[in-house]
C-alpha cells in the first residue's frame, strides 16, 4: 500500500505553465507597447506642450506639430458616419427583430453580416472609383474642388459601419425577453407601441453600446478614409459645425498615420515623437468609445 502511494509522484500541470506564460506574454507586450509609445512621444510633448493637441499647426519641415486639425477631422468623420448610419441601422434592426419571421430574419442577417466581412480596402476602392466621382458632381455647387472631401469620408464610413451597427443593434433588440413582448401585446398594445415603449426602452443601453462600438470602429478606420479624404493638413474651420469644412479635403489621425510621413519622421526624434503622440491620441479616443460601450453592456447585463 505504501509503495503504491509512493509511486504516485508529483506531476506539474503543464497546461497551467503554458497558460500563465501566455497570459504573462500578452500583458508584457501590452505594457511594452504602451510604454514605448509614451516614451517615444516624449520629445514631441516636451517640444510642443499641450499645443501638440490643441494647435492647428502641422508643418513638419519647420518643426511645427499641432494636430488639432486631424483630431477635428477624425471626430467629424466618425460622428458623420454614425449620424448617417444609425437611423438606417435602427430601422433595419427593428424590422428584423420585430417584423420578420425567424427564417427570413436569418437570411437578411447573413446577407448583412457578409457585407460586414468586406475588407476596408474594397470599400476604399468603391469610394475612389464611384463615390468620389458622385460626390464631386453633387458637391460642386457647394464649393467643393473635387470629390475628396470630409463628407465623402463620412458617407463611405457610414456604409462601412452600417452592417456592424445593424447586427449589433438587432442583437440588443433580440435580447429583450420574449415574455416582455408577450406581456405588452397581452395588455393590448399594438406592435408599434410595443417597439417604442417596451423594446426600445429596454434595449436602449444595448443600442447605445452598439453605437459607441460602431463610432469607435469608424474613428479608427484607416484605409478607406485614407483613399477618399484628400489628406490636406491644417483644416480646422473657425466654427465647430461648419458646412464649408464638409466639402473640403481634410486629414484624420489615421490617414496621417497611414501615409508615408511615417518613413520621413523616422530620422527626427521630435517628428517621430509627434507621430507617436498621434497614435496615443487615437488610442485614447477609440479606447474611450470602446470602454464606454463595454461599461454600458456590463451595466445592462448585470441589471437584467
Amino acid at each position: 500500500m505504501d509503495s503504491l502511494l509512493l509511486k504516485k509522484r508529483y506531476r506539474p500541470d503543464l497546461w497551467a505553465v503554458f497558460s500563465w506564460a501566455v497570459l504573462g506574454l500578452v500583458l508584457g507586450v501590452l505594457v511594452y507597447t504602451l510604454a514605448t509609445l509614451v516614451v517615444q512621444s516624449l520629445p514631441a510633448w516636451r517640444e510642443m506642450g499641450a499645443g501638440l493637441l490643441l494647435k492647428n499647426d502641422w508643418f513638419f519641415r519647420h518643426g511645427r506639430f499641432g494636430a488639432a486639425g486631424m483630431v477635428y477631422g477624425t471626430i467629424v468623420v466618425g460622428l458623420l458616419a454614425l449620424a448617417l448610419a444609425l437611423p438606417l441601422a435602427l430601422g433595419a434592426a427593428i424590422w428584423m427583430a420585430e417584423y420578420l419571421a425567424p427564417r427570413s430574419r436569418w437570411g437578411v442577417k447573413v446577407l448583412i453580416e457578409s457585407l460586414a466581412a468586406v475588407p476596408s480596402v474594397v470599400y476604399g476602392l468603391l469610394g475612389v472609383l464611384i463615390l468620389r466621382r458622385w460626390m464631386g458632381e453633387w458637391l460642386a455647387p457647394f464649393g467643393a474642388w473635387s470629390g475628396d472631401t470630409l463628407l465623402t469620408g463620412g458617407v463611405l464610413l457610414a456604409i462601412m459601419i452600417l452592417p456592424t451597427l445593424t447586427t449589433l443593434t438587432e442583437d440588443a433588440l433580440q435580447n429583450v425577453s420574449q415574455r416582455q413582448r408577450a406581456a405588452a401585446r397581452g395588455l393590448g398594445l399594438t406592435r408599434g407601441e410595443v417597439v417604442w415603449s417596451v423594446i426600445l426602452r429596454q434595449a436602449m443601453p444595448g443600442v447605445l453600446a452598439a453605437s459607441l462600438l460602431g463610432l469607435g470602429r469608424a474613428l479608427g478606420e484607416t484605409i478607406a478614409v485614407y483613399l477618399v479624404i484628400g489628406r490636406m493638413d491644417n483644416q480646422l474651420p473657425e466654427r465647430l459645425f461648419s458646412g464649408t469644412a464638409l466639402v473640403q479635403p481634410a486629414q484624420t489621425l489615421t490617414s496621417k498615420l497611414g501615409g508615408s510621413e511615417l518613413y520621413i519622421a523616422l530620422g527626427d526624434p521630435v517628428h517621430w515623437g509627434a507621430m507617436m503622440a498621434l497614435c496615443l491620441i487615437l488610442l485614447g479616443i477609440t479606447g474611450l468609445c470602446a470602454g464606454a460601450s463595454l461599461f454600458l453592456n456590463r451595466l445592462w447585463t448585470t441589471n437584467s
Partner: protein
Amino acid sequence: MRGCFAVPEPTVDNKLMRRRRTFIDLATHTIAVVGGLLCLGIVTAVLGWIILRGAPHVDLHFFWEASRESGLAGGIRYQIAGTIILMLTTLAVAVPLSIGLALAATVYLPRGAARSALQGFLQLLNAMPSILFGIVGYLFFFHYLGWGKSWLAGGLVLGWMILPTVTISLIKSMEAIPLKQIHAAAGLGMRRGQIIRSIYLPQSVRGLFTGSFLGLARAAGETAPILFVATVFAGVSLPEGIRDSPVLALPYHIFVLAQDSLQAGAIENLWATAFVLVALVIGLSLTVLPFRLHNSNRRDHA
C-alpha cells in the same frame, strides 16, 4: 367584480385615440421596412457592383500569372501566395496563444474580478484600430530588431490583431461545457491537466474553428497592419528568408493600384482582384456560419 376589472367608460376621445394608435403602429412598421430595405439595398448594391465588375475578368490565367507592368497586366499569382503565407502564419500565431488565454480565463484565473478584467481587456483590444497594430509592429520589428519588411513580422502582427476574436469565441465555447462532465471527470480522479486535454480542448474545437475563420476573414482583408511591416507592391515572388523577405498581398495590391486608378488598364485588374479578395473573405466567414447559427438559436430559446 366591477371594482376589480375597471373598464373605462367609452368616451368621445376614444375614436381619436384609436386613430392615433393605428397611425403610430403604421408609422413604426413603415420606418422599419424602409430602413430594412435601404440596408438590404446598400448590401446588394455593394456586393452586386463588385461581382458585376470583377467576376467577368477572373479566369484561371488571372489566378496563375504573375502581375506585369506594375499591376496593369497579368494576374495575381504571387499576391494570392503572399496572402496565403500571411494567413497561415497568422493562424500559427493566434491559435496557441488563444488556447493559453482561454484556459487562463476559464480554468486558471481566480473567478470574479480577474476573469472579467481579462474579458474586458480582450474586448478593448478587439476595438483597437488596426493601423496601431501596424505602427507598433513597425516600431518593434524595424526600429528595435532592425528587420526589413518580412512575412513573419506581418503574420505576427496579424496574429496579435485577431487574438481577441479567436480567444473570445474559444472562451464562449469553453464556458458552455456542461459542469456535469467536468465534475464526472474530476470524480474519476483525473488531474486538471487531463481534464483539460480530454474535455476542455475537444469540446471547444467548434469555438476555435469559428473564431479562427472569423479572425482570418478579417486578417486576409486588412491592409493597415501590414502596410509598414510585411508587404511591397512588386519585385518579389516567394519569400526566401525571414528578416528581409517581404511578400505581395491582395489587399495591399488593391490599395496601391487604387491610388493611381487614373490609368484605365488598372481598373479591370483592380475590380477582379477586389472580387477575388471579397470572395475569399466572405467564403471564410460563411464557412463557420452553421456553427454561429447553432449558437444563436440556442440563445433564442433561452
